[in-house]
């Protein structure tokens, strides 16, 4: 049995401090199967912090049921989390646009390359995100069309409500998940909850999913809960509801609601004139899986995403 804290990348900061990227390795038994849980790439996403604690503490308490290696990387961008900054603080860089990085590159490129090298070779990697401060998301896994055949079976083990298979975009080639999937490490991107907050029920849901994944990988012989069958976006369209006006968004629909096209789902109001400046309607029928949490909006601000029913109309 091994539980240890390792520093996988380090860089000197200007004044008497090092930037350290650390992981907890929990290992037991003879199997070399390895699961990596990574989070904290964006400093304003905190759901993964609690989940990292939950998984680590539970495995340490029930280590006898583990046969394999679990690496937990709670903070890929520790200075971002520490300063409530989404990107890397000194550069205003989105760390998830710097991968795969470079051993011979700048400080952040070097750190990204070390992270990739350390995770690569895991049997599965789960990269946990929690939207941003603006939007709340139901627990979901996102993947691009080319990676779906390899990843979907694993995504279904994770106890999420929804799997969103989206078109690939060139700009996303700079993400950790793309880099690892390209190198043959199956990497699932989880989005759940909202930035700067912890949603205990979602963390619990993912906790059950991760134990189930470990069981399916043959790494876990302890208790597991029955996992839910996610809705998969394949063959369905996603409708985007964006504000056209500027003001304060006040929803009247709830997260997870099934709505019909044209249903009133909220208003954008002007606090100065006391007028409703936009009556917000559902652009299509379906389930609201993303809903705006932060009220101030501009024209273009995303208010909701709606997953349309599959052909035939019935919800699964």
């Amino acid at each position, binding site marked *: 049995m091994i539980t240890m804290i390792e520093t996988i990348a380090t860089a000197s900061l200007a004044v008497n401090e090092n930037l350290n990227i650390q992981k907890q390795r929990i290992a037991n038994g003879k199997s070399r199967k390895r699961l990596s849980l990574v989070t904290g790439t964006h400093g304003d996403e905190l759901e993964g912090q609690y989940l990292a604690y939950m998984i680590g503490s539970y495995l340490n308490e029930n280590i006898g049921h583990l046969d394999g290696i679990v690496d937990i990387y709670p903070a890929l961008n520790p200075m971002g989390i520490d300063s409530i900054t989404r990107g890397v603080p000194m550069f205003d860089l989105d760390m998830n646009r710097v991968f795969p990085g470079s051993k011979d590159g700048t400080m952040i490129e070097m750190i990204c390359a070390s992270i990739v090298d350390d995770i690569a070779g895991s049997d599965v990697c789960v990269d946990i995100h929690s939207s941003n401060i603006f939007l709340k998301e139901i627990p979901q896994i996102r993947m691009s069309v080319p990676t779906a055949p390899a990843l979907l079976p694993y995504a279904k083990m994770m106890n999420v409500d929804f799997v969103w298979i989206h078109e690939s975009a060139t*700009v996303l080639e700079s993400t950790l998940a793309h880099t690892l999937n390209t190198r043959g490490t199956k990497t699932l991107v989880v989005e759940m909850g909202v930035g700067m907050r912890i949603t205990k029920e979602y963390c619990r849901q993912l906790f059950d999913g991760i134990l189930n994944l470990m069981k399916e990988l043959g790494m876990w012989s302890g208790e597991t809960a029955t996992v839910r069958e996610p809705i998969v976006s394949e063959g369905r369209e996603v409708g985007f509801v964006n504000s056209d006006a500027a003001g304060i968004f006040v929803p009247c629909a709830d997260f997870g609601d099934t709505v019909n096209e044209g249903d009133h789902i909220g208003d954008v109001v002007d606090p100065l004139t006391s007028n409703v400046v936009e009556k917000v309607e559902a652009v299509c029928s379906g389930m609201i899986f993303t809903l705006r949490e932060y009220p101030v909006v501009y024209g273009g601000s995303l208010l909701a995403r709606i997953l349309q029913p599959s052909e035939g109309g019935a919800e699964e």
Partner: protein
Amino acid sequence: MKRKVLFSMKSPYREQLDVIGFRFGHGKKSAAIVGAMRGNEVQQMYVCSRMVQELKKLEAKGRIAEDCEIMVIPCVNYYSMNIGKRFWAMDNTDINRMFPGYDQGETTQRIADGLFSKIQGYEYGIQLASFYQPGNFLPHVKMMDTGFTNSDLMKDFGLEYGIIRKPRPYDTTTLNYNWQIWETKAFSVYANATDVIDENAADEAVYAILRFLDKQGIITANTPPAYVTKLIDESKTKQIRSEAAGVFKSLISIGKRVERGNVLGIISDPFDGEVVSEIRSMVSGTIYFEYCTPLINSNTVCFKIIK
């Protein structure tokens, strides 16, 4: 000259954002010049304002060619400039990572779309660009190698160097890249500074743009003698990174020729002042970028050298 509102965006709490363009001449869309897209790009806005002055004078003298139109957009994101932020004030997104934009998309995608729809279709596109790290550049012009690239055109700016850059995935949403994809011959002009005004570099950038427009027959302008531009592949330039962290002091200035082994700068301990690292050049060449902030982390690009 016509001052036009190219795109507007309402704000919940501030005056409406109006992206302003200055149009000179009439006819064929010949050249579009874009300044600040980020809130700290003061030099970039300043160079554009100087271009407006120059083009006004040329227009009054009838020196803009017939059937040629030039558009200058000094500042897209003055909302961020006015409150001391770099990216879009509301959500910290970068307008120059949103092109070609989308009119039904998120706020900065809509701004990018509003701008791009007005500057698309020009034969030449010139962006006053900045670098994400604090530092000074030798004025130079850069082109992205998209396949739609005639790098020899960079020589018409008459700056000392023209650099060709192979686009990375994150470049595919920049203005420069998308201009080229939509068949505008696009250039990035680096006028040394970003959040301060460097008059000499601004002069050089203004003359370079005027020279380029003159060479393309869009205007008739007298400009100072030009360099014979040396074209370089960016991958062939050498980056010198800090091997330690602390207080950084440059011992050289941009534009200087250095030999392999020369000491370019020192890093000292921030508490006791001991020198912890000497930064030496690994190649012989000309310094074209120099880091300019007193504190430096390890593995930070502190000099770039054209071999």
